[in-house]
């Protein structure tokens, strides 16, 4: 079972803090990978404009690197910043890592004054096009391409990878940091199987295994929506379901939990919008997950969320204080990230809850599926 940690704070902090939390939950992963997502970026040597999309990934060979940089230029992206990690390559187990990159671009002129939707679509198209540039010999791995978000994924032990990238040097900081220490399960050890998964600003990471993965994947793939690809891990569907809920169905965030773990008939009978939710359950039936899972996610506005599957067999916990909050798959992870909080105010969500850390970070919001659904059309 993978270990998950998320920290969000008003003041940007080093991702190394979150990696130390991973250390405290070490029993739960096997060194088969680490994934990091940073949002609300701050670079020590560059005044970053949060509208610049950041391309994160790995060019596995020199040729791949050349292809990638040329392509970006050709597509009209103007390089504004190229982050150079102070690497300790001997700590990286894999050998085909020519260059890790984290590069901020100015979006092509044609898209600058367009709506977010159009710009997001362009960024995704670029990311998919870069993916297509990759070949067996000259591989390119793209983790994300989005404003104010950077990602790192690597095979190995979390702390070791943190050291390899010298993440403790304060070069990179962020207001939100998600980390996953991977426990390899049914699917092979693969860079692309590391969480968090990312699509157009929406990111989630999960522990446990979603046994309904294959039917959900088949349904998502059948929708033919750009970006619904990959699926090296059963957990990638959680990201895409969240993306589908918010961006395609344009439903409020509350709908996510109603889609992945709908209420049963008896509960819906008592719910003020029971008819609507029963209809939604039916229409989204193939997206019902089968955990046990704890799903931790972040959205472009820096909202953080935590939900459990219906069986609620995971002990994920949220805790913190005004201005700084942490979510972890185990309570010791929260302790490690925010030791100076009142632990009696920690919260472990039950099957019906969605825990929200809003962008203002003043207090937690806890939504219940039994609450009225905040959508006029559902009334």
């Amino acid at each position, binding site marked *: 079972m993978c270990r998950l940690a998320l920290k969000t704070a008003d003041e940007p902090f080093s991702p190394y803090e979150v990696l130390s939390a991973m250390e405290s939950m070490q029993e739960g992963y096997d060194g088969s990978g680490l994934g990091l997502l940073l949002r609300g970026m701050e670079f020590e040597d560059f005044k970053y404009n949060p509208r610049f999309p950041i391309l994160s990934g790995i060019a596995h060979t020199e040729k791949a690197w050349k292809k990638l940089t040329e392509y970006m230029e050709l597509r009209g992206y103007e390089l504004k910043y190229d982050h150079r990690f102070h690497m300790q390559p001997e700590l990286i187990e894999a050998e085909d890592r020519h260059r890790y990159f984290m590069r901020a671009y100015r979006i092509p002129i044609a898209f600058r004054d367009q709506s977010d939707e159009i710009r997001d679509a362009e960024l995704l198209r670029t990311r998919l096009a870069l993916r297509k540039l990759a070949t067996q010999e000259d591989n390119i791995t793209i983790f994300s391409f989005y404003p104010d978000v950077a990602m790192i994924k690597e095979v190995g032990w979390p702390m070791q990878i943190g050291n390899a990238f010298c993440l403790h040097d304060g070069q990179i900081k962020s207001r939100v940091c998600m980390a996953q220490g991977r426990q390899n399960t049914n699917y092979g050890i693969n860079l692309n199987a590391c969480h968090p998964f990312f699509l157009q600003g929406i990111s989630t990471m999960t522990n*446990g*295994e*979603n*046994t309904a993965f294959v*039917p959900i994947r088949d349904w998502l*793939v059948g929708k033919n929506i750009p970006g619904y690809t990959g699926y090296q891990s059963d957990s990638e569907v959680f990201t895409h379901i969240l993306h589908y809920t918010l961006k395609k169905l344009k439903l409020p965030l509350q709908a996510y939990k109603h889609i992945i773990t709908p209420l049963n008939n008896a509960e819906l009978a008592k719910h003020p919008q029971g008819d609507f939710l029963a209809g939604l359950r039916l229409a989204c039936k193939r997206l019902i997950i089968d955990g046990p899972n704890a799903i931790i996610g972040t959205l472009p506005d820096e909202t953080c969320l935590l939900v459990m599957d219906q069986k609620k067999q995971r002990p994920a916990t949220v805790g913190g204080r005004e201005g700084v909050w942490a979510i972890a798959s185990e309570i010791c992870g929260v302790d490690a990230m925010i030791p100076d909080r009142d632990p009696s105010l920690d919260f472990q969500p039950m099957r019906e809850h969605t825990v929200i850390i809003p962008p203002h970070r003043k207090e937690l919001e806890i939504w219940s599926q039994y609450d009225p659904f905040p959508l006029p059309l559902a009334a």
Partner: protein
Amino acid sequence: MVSVRSVSVTPGSLTPTDLLWIIEHREDRCTLCGQCTAVCPKGAIRLAHMRQRVPKLDVFNKKRGNDYRTFTGIRQETDPAKLCIGCGMCSMVCPNEAITPVAGTNENRTVFFQNLKGAPMTRGGRRNTTGPTLLDKIMFNRISMLTDPALDAGRHEFTTTTTLGRILSPEDFLERTLNGGWIPPSREIFPFIIGSMSFGALSPNMWLGLLQGVAYCNEVLGIPVVMCTGEGGCPPWVLKSPYLKYIILQIASGYFGWDEIIRAIPEMQCDPAAIEIKYGQGAKPGDGGLLMWYKVSKLIARLRGVPEGVDLPSPPVHQTLYSIEESVMKMVQTLSTAFQHKVPVYPKISASTSAKSVLNNLVRNPYAGGLMIDGIDGGTGAAYNVSMDATGHPIASCVRDCYLDLAAQGKQNEIPIFAAGGIGKNGNVAQNGMAMVMLGASGVHIGKYIMQAAAGCLGNEMNRCNVCNLGICPKGITSQNTKLYRRLDPDKVAERVGDVFMSINTEVKKIMAPLGRSQSLPIGMSDAIGIADKAAADRLQIRYVC
């Protein structure tokens, strides 16, 4: 040497060893009570008077001679019209275990005479092939072991229902909710449905027992089982009862019983579960329903609106419309309208290499509530043997192809596919059904299995019994003869229906729990199944295991 002329030899002369079933009779146990001959549905055995020679020796006069005694015993008929069907009723009624049919081990010579008077063999039952079916060989082998512990089938909450009826895409659902559009009707039902067996094919007691059992499953056990009527209409008291909601009304090419149904609509207390439009049947694809004259009793004639005692062959296709596409479209729409668009309407077709084109037609028909596909191993009350044995398409690959086709269009949630034809053929009903579900079916129809399990139908795939077409069912399941169907107690049938569905429900959970599935029926969970047959695994796109 006996003279040739004294031996009666005709082309059809057979001896008991030539037969499929041979009566073993022990004269030392027989009390000549006559119960076996009275009960035999075929008249295959008779009391016969026989003469036996007894040697008579006159020792003193040194003479040898003969004496004769006569005795009465049971003898088997060899006339092809009266062949033993192996039902075993004789042995069931014999007080002394003096008689029983045994399967003949010699080659079955009777097959060459099943065309007397130019009439090919007709029968009830299903394809006569024995041994494990493909579905029997499918294993559930994606067992939760590491990060997703297997569940406790006894204590955990499981959702074991499925949806019957058209489901909108999430986008359409939201759009119509917002603009007050029509949301197609659907039903949450148990995925094992009692398949279409008509009132006419089944005896009144069998039908009543099934309905009672279904009502008990719904109202007491909380298992939402539904049953389909088949082509023969539905008794008016059921149409006007609150039990109609457990019934799928079938309309087929003979339209039998639909006068009554249409007239009853204003008086219905509730809507039926669904309407099934039969275009084809797995056991006899391309052939219409057939109720032979033996079974058209006064009651059945009244219900179907026909004269008594006439054959009722339905045409192979719906005759009133020009093309099948138009027929499907118009009938689906008309029936949906008749029930004010509040009842799911779906077609039933025979499994066929052309099933996908029907399916794709339905995808574009907004009123179509699903597709039911019936495979070659499906049962029937009456059909030509050649249709049953050799015509049709196995269900597994047909449903799999259709599911994958829907999945490629992202429509697998919108049109549920139901499968039938050989589910539970060897008794493994839950296993067979769940294998179909994981291949992509939303549920399965079971007919023959229900007759066997709930009423003790004696038919099997060694051509035992299988006389449903003749109205002489020894158990009273498929007979309209009062004397025969009174043997069947509807209360006992209902009790067995309850037993069967409780047990299926438990087995479904026992299958889902180790897979870590409990939140929804694992439709299309093809990663969970495997088979030790490479060709089948490749064809079905599932895992080959050995």
